[in-house]
């Protein structure tokens, strides 16, 4: 007698259609297809020989995987030189922006001085200027002092462009480090500099690394500053170099997709490093774009 109702409940549960699960996974998979599939298609195309790229209907799996496209990229274009230029510009930009903004953000968090909040807000305001507003007059000015077509000009422009963001991001990281730790060090006889160097920097290291990677991605992805400031082929960075490669000849889609894959790899590596800081970075304004 007593068992029957129980079994009924059990049956009812068992046969309930999993609408929720279906909806959640269905929706997520659709989103995944929309965001990731274009990139996967790029990867697939980059490994196909030319005759397979141009078959109809298109095939998902390459019949003969090949590295020809990558080989062509290195032998028939200046891809390697663009890659090295991008690396150089991104690293220098990140180094400059970090040194400046670590000092600046520390100053903003640990010291009181007149007009501090106003300055911080002014910095945030400059963050609102679109690159196109800055880069045209920047070009005219840089031309006057003869720096056009140098990596110096590009690094300066990108440093200045990313500074407002790195300052605000680092400021928010420094704010989470308790002042007491530093004060304790000062009481023990450390100088301000020593306290900052041995106490604050190690504690802020994750934040500094995250900021560095945000800046690296920004510099690595930049198109507009490099387009306007760099004119000679040996100095071009990846986005500009590859764009010109695309426009020059009959499009070799395999080679272009291979270049896309190679440009994307460093970004993916950075991304894996910063995944955990992404939300915090967003809180401080996100990557501009």
């Amino acid at each position, binding site marked *: 007698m007593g068992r029957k109702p129980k079994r009924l409940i059990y049956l009812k549960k068992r046969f309930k259609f999993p609408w929720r699960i279906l909806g959640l996974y269905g929706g997520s998979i659709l989103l995944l297809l929309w965001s990731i599939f274009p*990139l996967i298609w790029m990867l697939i195309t980059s490994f196909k020989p030319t005759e397979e790229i141009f078959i109809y209907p298109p095939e998902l799996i390459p019949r003969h995987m090949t590295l020809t496209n990558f080989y062509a990229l290195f032998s028939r274009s200046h891809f390697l030189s663009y890659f090295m230029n991008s690396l150089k510009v991104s690293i220098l930009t990140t180094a400059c922006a970090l040194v400046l903004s670590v000092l600046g953000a520390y100053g903003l968090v640990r010291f009181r001085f007149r007009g501090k909040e106003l300055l911080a807000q002014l910095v945030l305001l400059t963050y609102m200027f679109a690159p196109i*507003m800055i880069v045209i007059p920047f070009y005219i000015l840089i031309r006057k002092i003869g720096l056009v077509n140098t990596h110096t000009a590009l690094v300066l422009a990108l440093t200045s462009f990313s500074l407002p963001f790195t300052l605000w991001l680092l400021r928010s990281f420094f704010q989470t480090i308790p002042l007491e730790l530093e004060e304790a060090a000062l009481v023990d006889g450390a100088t301000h500099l020593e306290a900052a160097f041995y106490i604050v920097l190690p504690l802020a290291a994750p934040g500094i690394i995250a900021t560095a990677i945000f800046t690296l991605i920004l510099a690595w992805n930049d198109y507009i500053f490099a387009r306007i400031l760099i004119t000679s082929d040996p100095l071009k960075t990846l986005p500009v170099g590859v764009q010109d490669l695309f426009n020059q000849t009959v499009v070799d889609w395999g080679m272009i997709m291979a270049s896309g894959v190679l440009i994307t790899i460093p970004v993916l590596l950075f991304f894996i490093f910063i995944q955990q800081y992404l939300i915090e970075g967003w809180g401080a304004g996100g990557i501009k774009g």
Partner: protein
Amino acid sequence: MGFLLLLPSLLVIGTLTLYPVVYNVWLSLLNKHAFLPGEKFVGLRNYELVLKDPQFWMSFKLGVIYSLVTVVLQLVIGIGAALLLHESFPGRNFFRGAILFPYLVPTIVGVLLWKWLLHDTYGLVNYTLQALNLVKDPIGWFGQDTIMISLILVSVWQFFPFVFLTILARLQIIPPELYEAAKVDGASALQRFFYITLPQLKTVLFIIILLRGIWMFTKFDTVWLMGGGEGVGLYIRTLPLYAYMKTFTYWQAGIGATVAMVMLLIMAGAAAIYFKIYKVEEGI
């Protein structure tokens, strides 16, 4: 001491960002060639020329269409994705991470891979549409009627993760008690969304719409790389492209600066109206 630490940053921002922007104001009052030396002060004449230029208004119109449509679509997809991936289920974090990729991939890569997907003969998009019998003949995605649609598609793909992540971050700090109380009171899922979630998201939505609106209206690289400019590209030549081309294609640096200035003024005006509407709605 604190000020001294901040000084180097201020100097860099001041000379390399602020000064060029101020110089741009001066430039807009000059008749100046982009490369040749020599310049002549012409007062507000450039502004008069620009405001009477039908090409300028064409670009303005295209820019408004582009930013309105892309912002709305980014919001729809971004909010939908955030609500979905705010639910807890196994594998959620994988999906969360994966859908951020389009935002992190360099613009050049996003544009080139979509150009390949949208290729008229060998593109996967046309193939899929034909295979599903949605269209009979392949669509030319880079014709004068379609190029804006392609541009919007690529832009929404590239930028919706910004909306997604910002909304998700905000959803995570809504106090769960609010939902529990509503459930006890018998509110349906739809009611919970309209009476709890949406009001909580109001401020962050205000900021997202403002930022995305500004960024889409001044977007240069995606539009330019999609082929904006001349020929068919005229049909996606938004204001930033027009300013760029005035300076670097027609070498009229003064006019280029003026277009950029007018663009800034339009944005400031739009932002002011936007703030006002928001305040009226808030009842302040």
